[in-house]
């Protein structure tokens, strides 16, 4: 799996390679048959609307995931905005219940990482509670290192796997 920064690097690299190919093969391109005339294509359909209060609304417009530093469970400054948006959304849709999943990267023993995942899930829960979300709407579950998003043994991958994910379990609009 590729994260965004790697994707951008890859895209930029691909563009450079394409450009290089163009310049070195200029003559070959010149003798190639002309491309077919452009065909009028219909405009793409508008993106399907996201139903407010739906699971997709929460994932796309709010963001369900926050990250953690290695072996830490404090909420990062960079993630506080996401959790504030989560809390505002949950306060707007009070019938929604969520389970916060806590995950760890592979660099910890199995039992320790189960406990670490529980710390992370609870940290997310407490942050949401501090912003007015009722504890009765918030469950937590730890998956330790058992459910990675990404399976490479790299710092990049480990960072993605150290996460808290707020998953809607009931009450979303459908």
């Amino acid at each position, binding site marked *: 799996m590729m994260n965004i920064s790697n994707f951008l690097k890859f895209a930029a690299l691909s563009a450079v390679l394409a450009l290089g190919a163009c310049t070195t093969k200029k003559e070959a391109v010149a003798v190639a048959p002309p491309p077919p005339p452009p065909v009028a294509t219909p405009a793409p359909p508008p993106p399907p609307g996201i139903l407010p209060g739906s699971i997709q609304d929460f994932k796309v417009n709010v963001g369900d995931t926050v990250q953690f530093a290695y072996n830490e469970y404090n909420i990062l400054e960079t993630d506080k905005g996401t959790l504030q948006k989560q809390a505002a959304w949950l306060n707007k849709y009070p019938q929604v219940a969520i389970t916060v999943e806590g995950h760890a990267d*592979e660099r*910890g*023993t*199995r*039992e*320790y990482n*189960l406990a670490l995942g529980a710390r992370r899930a609870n940290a997310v829960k407490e942050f949401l509670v501090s912003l007015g979300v009722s504890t009765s709407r918030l469950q937590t*579950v730890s998956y*330790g290192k058992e459910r990675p998003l990404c399976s490479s*043994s790299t710092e990049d991958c480990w960072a993605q796997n150290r996460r808290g994910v707020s998953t809607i379990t009931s009450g979303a609009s459908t």
Partner: protein
Amino acid sequence: MRKFLLPLVALAALFATPALAALQVDVTQGNAQPLPIAIPDFVTTDPVGANIASVVRADLERSGLFKPVDPRAFVDKVTNINVVPNFANWRVISAQGLVTGDVVQQPDGRLRVDFRLWDVYGESQMLGQQFFTQPANWRRIAHLVSDAIYERITGEKGYFDTRIVFISETGPATRRVKRLAVMDEDGANPIFLTRGDYMVLTPRFNPTAQMIAYMSYIGAKPRVYLFDLETGKQEVLGNFPNMTFSPRFSPDGNKLALSLENNGNSDIFVMDLRSRQVTRLTSDPAIDTAPSFSPDGRQITFESDRGGSQQIYIMNVDGSNQRRVSFGSGRNGTPVWSPRGDLIAFTKQDGGRFDIGVMRVDGSGERLISSGWEDEGPTWAPNGRVLMFTRSIQGGRGAQIWSVDVTGRNERRVMTPGDASDPAWSPLIQ
């Protein structure tokens, strides 16, 4: 499922065992010089005679302490185990030990298996035993023969007639399917106990090998369960609002140590399995988990990050006198007390690696005994001489079970049906 107590009428020594000790192996020295031993097919008209000998050869070879001589090198053929062998014919092929056996079908359908262990250079019998069993149990008889030979020559109890409970793994790392499974110590007879529709982790046998405690995600609620191998029944242990995990039985089987999580904090408790009452043993804001009893049941070793990093501690079984014992480099966790009481095996994380280590119970004498990229979660053979552990392959490319002698020698992969993790060794089966 059938009870593992099998109908086995055992063992009357055929002759008094002579008190000679010429033929012996010092297990504390590992496998520097494995003992050459000849194990011809047991005499019988049935293929089971060759099968038993083959399993005994494999058991003893796997221990690293014996070197079974290739039967194709034999210059003599055993046709009657009740006559003294021609020892010269076994010295020719450099065998120091010789095992002869026969299998006779009884009128009631059972098999009678006799075997003798001979000292080829001392020209004397070291051991003779007899077993009766149903034909289907021939593998157990082979393991009992291996255990008897191992014990006679090393002076230590064998561990071949044991089972392993483990987690069978399939599928990609991001969607791993983990099932509860058991198999014989040599990887034979694997049985899957769950279907894989929910994740199962960290199984442990009770002292009779009839019950398994483990953690399961049934209903997306991670809780400790008990599986009864006799009835196939599983039950959740207790009624707790949050995660329960990392179970391990007390040596008498009447109690279970485990971790309970509450508001993100994990502490260690002991549950009385008859009354189901729980007693809290730790109460601090750190992670306290991975408890393991001492063999006398009086102390518990566990891991905690109360000092700032994951380290190994010991406490009395009532929770008093909690003290740190690991002071080596890196992070140290998953302590497991040796059945002999003398050592604690553990997982060390240091310099980006995970290795299995052992140390004395006061934390001294630390030695690393495995060398993978991510080795974790040791479990002891009942004789305290061999360990198994999980070896994860870098890059999410699977997990395997490996074994290694406590000396650090004889590291080898344990055969499992596909990927596997979290092995736990049974006690010797009674």
